[in-house]
């Protein structure tokens, strides 16, 4: 440790020959820090300050309001359905893309990215056009008394669409960088496909999976645009947390709106913490390779 520290110090000294003058470094760092403070920390702080403006009791009361509780419940249900679906899809897609080559591979990668490039509102509209009353499946669904648009299934479908790149996007580069050698070694040692996955592949990507899941979950809970289009804003029935925040805000109950919003802000902080740990662990798995590549 001491050796490393002294080496670092030495490098720092030697490095001054090639680095910028002090005032440039200070200026650049303070610009970056100032920007973060102004655009990230200040609003985040404001959310909590506003939420607690009328005191702790008012804060709790706002959260206990039946419509809000229903919104929280719906959000949790949506995330609980979306995340496993996208986890499964993400692992399968990443496995296929990273470990095999097949025609149409780059097309598949592009398609996985599609939800990132399409405005969430458009994603929502697509579902309205398919499942809505005027949509192509609408009459058939109505005849069979199945409600998708302006009901929970629509919200879940729209959220799945918007969040499906997260796990796959996280795993593809990770699995590609790890290569196929360990899996092939497992096969030559007699392991079957599932044994290979659970005993060799999974341990190497578990932190990547966690990272993808946490991002996917944050987005699933926070999604506004797509859900807004398909939800129909029925109070106490089809409102998720972000929609509830909007409604409260539009009704000028600022404290309540910020109280609910603080839940999402907390989620963001937790996400950030888990993400940091996961990234550190991923870096560790990549830095302790079974190979010297």
């Amino acid at each position, binding site marked *: 440790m001491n050796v490393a520290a002294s080496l670092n110090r030495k490098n720092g000294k030697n490095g001054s020959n090639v680095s910028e003058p002090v005032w440039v470094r200070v200026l650049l760092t303070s610009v970056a820090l100032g920007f973060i403070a102004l655009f990230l920390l200040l609003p985040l702080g404001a959310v909590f300050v506003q939420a607690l403006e009328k005191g702790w009791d008012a804060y709790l009361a706002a959260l206990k309001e039946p419509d809000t509780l229903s919104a929280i419940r719906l959000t949790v249900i949506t995330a609980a359905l979306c995340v496993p679906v996208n986890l499964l899809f993400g692992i399968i897609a990443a496995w296929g893309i990273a470990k095999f080559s097949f025609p149409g591979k780059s097309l598949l990668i592009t398609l996985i990215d599609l939800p990132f490039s399409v405005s969430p509102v458009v994603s929502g509209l697509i579902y309205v056009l398919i499942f809505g009353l005027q949509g192509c499946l609408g009459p058939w669904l109505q005849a069979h008394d199945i409600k998708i648009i302006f009901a929970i299934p629509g919200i879940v479908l729209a959220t799945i669409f918007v969040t499906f790149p997260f796990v796959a996007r996280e795993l593809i580069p990770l699995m590609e960088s790890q290569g196929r050698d360990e899996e*092939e*070694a497992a*096969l030559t*040692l007699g*392991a079957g496909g599932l044994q290979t996955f659970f005993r060799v592949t999974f341990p*190497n990507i578990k932190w990547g999976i966690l990272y993808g899941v946490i991002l996917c979950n944050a987005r699933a809970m926070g999604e506004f645009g797509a859900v807004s289009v398909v939800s129909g804003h029925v109070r106490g029935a089809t409102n998720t947390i972000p929609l509830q925040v909007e409604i409260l805000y539009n009704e000028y109950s600022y404290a309540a709106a910020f109280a609910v919003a603080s839940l999402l802000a907390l989620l963001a902080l937790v996400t950030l913490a888990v993400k940091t740990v996961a990234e550190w662990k991923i870096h560790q*798995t990549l830095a302790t390779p079974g190979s*010297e*590549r």
Partner: protein
Amino acid sequence: MSIDIVGITKNFGSFTALDQVSLSVPSGELVALLGPSGSGKTSLLRIIAGLETPDSGHVLFNGEEATNRQVQERKVGFVFQHYALFRHMTVYDNIAFGLTVKPKKIRPTKLDIRDKVFTLLKLIQLEQLADRYPAQLSGGQRQRVALARALAVEPQVLLLDEPFGALDAKVRLELRRWLRRLHDEIHVTSVFVTHDQEEALEVADRIVVMNQGRIEQQGTPSEVYDHPATPFVFDFLGNVNLFQGRVHEGKARMAGLELASPEFATAHNAPALGYVRSHDIEIERETLDLGALEAEVRYVLSVGPLVRVNLALVDGNGIEVDLARDVADRLRLSVGEKVFARPRKIRVFTEDYQI
């Protein structure tokens, strides 16, 4: 177990990795697939292992068709160039892996697995490192663990892909001698891929020289080295000097030399190439007959136990001569000096590579 490769062809897109390759490896032999990168040697090894499927042709194990056998059923031990150790498992768990994934009915007990792993650890002389992770091992140790892991399932065939390629020169030398001794002990049919001719010559019972997806020559190390069948093999095994000339009715003329080459008795003024290994040339100050070439010393380099002399011939072409250190010390060559170079052995090939 014997391996027979019959007419294997493999293309990757428009690149032909293997072109109608046939090869037999008798049971218990240690065979080297030797060739430059892109010669198809690794593809061939992976096809034997079942990690790659050939476009056409057959793989037979003990005379039985095995082309479509699953990797897991082939009972091959495969050692990867970059070891491919399971990075999240200890050395012990790595070696035990092949035993612990066996179906319950035939899986050894925990105690038996333990015995087996420690026997292997003893074999690779790493008993005290059982609890280490691969990242905590040196390259040579990792490669030995990879070998022990492959041997744990008692494979019928051991396949090694450039097993020493990523190691430094000294460890590589030690490990390949160790592999040779190991093979003499356990006699499992083994095929290893290498681009290092010295490694192949030293370790293998038999060498298969590959080039551009085809087998150029196969034989014992001395056969391949002393009687190269093609110019490629001659060139690939060791340092070579090239002379251009012609053959006419059993006589070859090149660079001012005339040699008898009875194998070309029917040739009529055909263009030919003469190959001479750089250590098959003597340097003399004076000459008595016509078997030597006049030359000028361009530079003299000391390469470990050898002294490499670069000569310019009268026709302007350069040749390289490797002299033993004591010979060079006796000659004391100086740059610019006129000398005579006498090839001891010239191998003549005509341009269509027929002998």
